[in-house]
């Protein structure tokens, strides 16, 4: 707080007061054409002192970006993401300032300068990111040939070889500086690769897909009575539904994706010991919950424990579907391009 005051950003304004003074939430910023419109009410909120600080920090002048252009970029990314707050929530000046300070300004201005075709920016981009991008593509694709092809395709896109409505479009325009630029490039490569793989997998012929597969063997009779199996399925489904989001993600990553605890820890940004502990508690808690759910259906404790010992192959459970969020969130990007 003192720091914000120190750089000239007022800190005493409450959220309610901010809302009353005309701060606008992102939900109301989309105009008829679908692009983000910046209402005049937002402009005065980016105080001059903060603008100056961010301008100096970004090095935008090195890439030929004017102050007005820079401020517009900031305002647009702030409005598009409601300054990192949930959509519809009023945002105070401090929250706006904190949001802008969390943006990777140097990466952002470089990306925007490249998108506009600034030669010096491209030279810098290639010097800094070219090798990293190729290495990342090779690691993602799993071999050098495919990796280089993947990197070349992305380069072409980044350079703006694709056009829409007669205008060059570069994916760098969509970079908003929330994470690092190199991280964004890696994630974009990974998206391209996964989408390409999924698309081509769908195009495989049935003969190719079934080649070498043994004909399915007849299912043996389940040892556990069918009524108990149904009760067990319901009990598991209920127990999973009550889990929190992160716990569902842990289960999906560990049991469906078969990821190591180290990989999961990297994804969640925690130590792998934390993942180990959480998984242990989670499975422990799920077991207790399933037992409780079974007992609620009238089974004794012993019968419930016996039911838990059923062969998992006898259960008709779609764990993947159960772990999906019952309240799906809307994201702007379509699955395949």
């Amino acid at each position, binding site marked *: 707080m003192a720091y914000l005051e120190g750089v000239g950003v007022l800190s005493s304004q409450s959220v309610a007061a901010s809302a009353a003074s005309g701060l606008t939430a992102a939900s109301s910023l989309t105009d008829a054409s679908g692009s983000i419109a910046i209402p005049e009410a937002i402009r005065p909120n980016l105080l001059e002192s903060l603008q100056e600080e961010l301008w100096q920090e970004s090095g935008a002048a090195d890439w030929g970006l004017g102050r007005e252009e820079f401020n517009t970029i900031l305002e647009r990314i702030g409005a598009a993401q409601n300054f990192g*707050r949930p959509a519809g929530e009023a945002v105070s000046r401090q929250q706006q300032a904190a949001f802008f300070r969390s943006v990777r300004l*140097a990466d952002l201005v470089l990306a925007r300068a490249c998108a506009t075709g600034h030669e010096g920016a491209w030279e810098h981009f290639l010097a800094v990111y070219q090798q990293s991008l190729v290495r*990342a593509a090779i*690691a993602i694709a799993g071999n050098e040939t495919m990796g280089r092809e993947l990197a070349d395709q992305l380069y072409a896109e980044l350079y703006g070889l694709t056009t829409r409505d007669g205008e060059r479009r570069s994916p760098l325009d969509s970079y908003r500086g929330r994470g690092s*630029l190199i991280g964004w490039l890696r994630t974009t490569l990974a998206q391209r690769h996964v989408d390409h793989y999924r698309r081509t997998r769908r195009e495989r012929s049935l003969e190719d897909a079934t080649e070498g597969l043994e004909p399915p063997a007849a299912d043996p009779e389940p040892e556990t009575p069918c009524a108990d199996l149904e009760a067990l399925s319901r009990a598991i489904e209920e127990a999973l539904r009550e889990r929190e989001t*992160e716990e569902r993600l842990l289960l999906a990553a560990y*049991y469906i994706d078969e990821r*190591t605890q180290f990989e999961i820890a990297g994804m969640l940004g925690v130590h*792998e010991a934390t993942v180990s502990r959480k*998984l242990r508690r989670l499975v422990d808690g799920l077991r207790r919950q399933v037992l409780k759910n079974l007992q609620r259906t009238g089974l004794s404790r012993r019968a419930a424990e016996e039911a838990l010992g059923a062969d998992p192959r006898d259960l008709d459970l779609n764990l993947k579907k159960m772990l999906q969020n019952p309240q799906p969130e809307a994201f702007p990007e379509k699955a395949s391009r």
Partner: protein
Amino acid sequence: MNSNSQLDFHPDAESLNAFAEQALGAAEREQVLSHLAGCSRCRQVVYLAQAAAEAEIPAAVAVSRATAEDRPWFANWRWTWVPAAALAAVAALAVTFYPWASGFRPKQTPVAPEVAKVVPQNAMQVPKPTFQKHRNAETARPAVPPVTLKPSAKSVQPAARPTLPVETGQLQLAPSAGPEAAGSVHGESYAPLSLPSASGPSATGLGVTGTNIGGQANAVLFKPQPAANSWPQQTLQKRMAGGPARTAATTQVAQTNLRAMGGPQAARTLNFAAAMPRSEAQPASGTSLEVSMKRLPAAVPVLAGLGGFKLSNGAMAVSAAVTLHQTLALDGTGALFLSEDGGLHWEPVAQQWTGRAIEVRTTRAASGPAAPPVTFELMNEAGLTWVSADGKAWKAK
């Protein structure tokens, strides 16, 4: 929108990357988490991006090592004068105060005349009183080293102990977990596996955060550890294993990823009837590591110079720079942390440089009283350098 349509729309690369880099606010993070829990495509994207980031580390380490090799051999030891000076100061204090503390009161009478008096007397009586007199007299003179060696060594030892890296390494790696704990790190002690395929992915853990921690020094640091199979040592040895093996492992992961993309191959069975994981060896080891670091605050700067310690986010430091009052350390993702209490508490430093930082070091242009103050230097993976006087505000060099 029904639940199926959840899979038709995905977070963009910006959101997924910001999620992986912990740059999202709580509400946005929860939104992405919620999507990831049900979307194998986006989880796949995050894993692959993560694997690509890990593949970068050997290259960064190579650059870092090459830079280190360019420096003269004594450059890495320039801060050893700090503990050496502390040791000398304690020794001087011990020399000064030991005679007083041990009850000796040096006589003001000159020694030489007494000796001169004794020598002409009976030879049988000479040794004992002469020795005593001599000892007293010499102890009273702090400048004479042979006499002061014994008491000063006794006084100095406790202060000198934390500065010895080998001893510190033994403390850190004291085997607190039994052999049963060794296999539980990657989940092998969890529910029974119906298809054994976890060995490939587990290899990706090699060297992600620790490959840059000064190789030779750490080899010395952990060599005396007798418990060869304990988790910390295994992990550290793996992390110090180096580049080619990891690159191969990453390639293997990419291939495994492709296989895994084919659909749910439930190699791990969520078996509620199965026994719970047998031990918590990993958390226990981690805890003992932290505790031992806290017990030895004076040792932290030395450890920082050698690498091999944990930061506040749980990651291992891959590069560190130490001054008298500040310690800067980088983790494997390039995040910078600052400690002003010898490594007990770490504050993240906001990124003010481009690319991923791979090395942080100190620099001094000249020596002598008129020399400029020590500054920190930070280098990113492209070899660009930033400088900072206080470790918090950075400018491009």
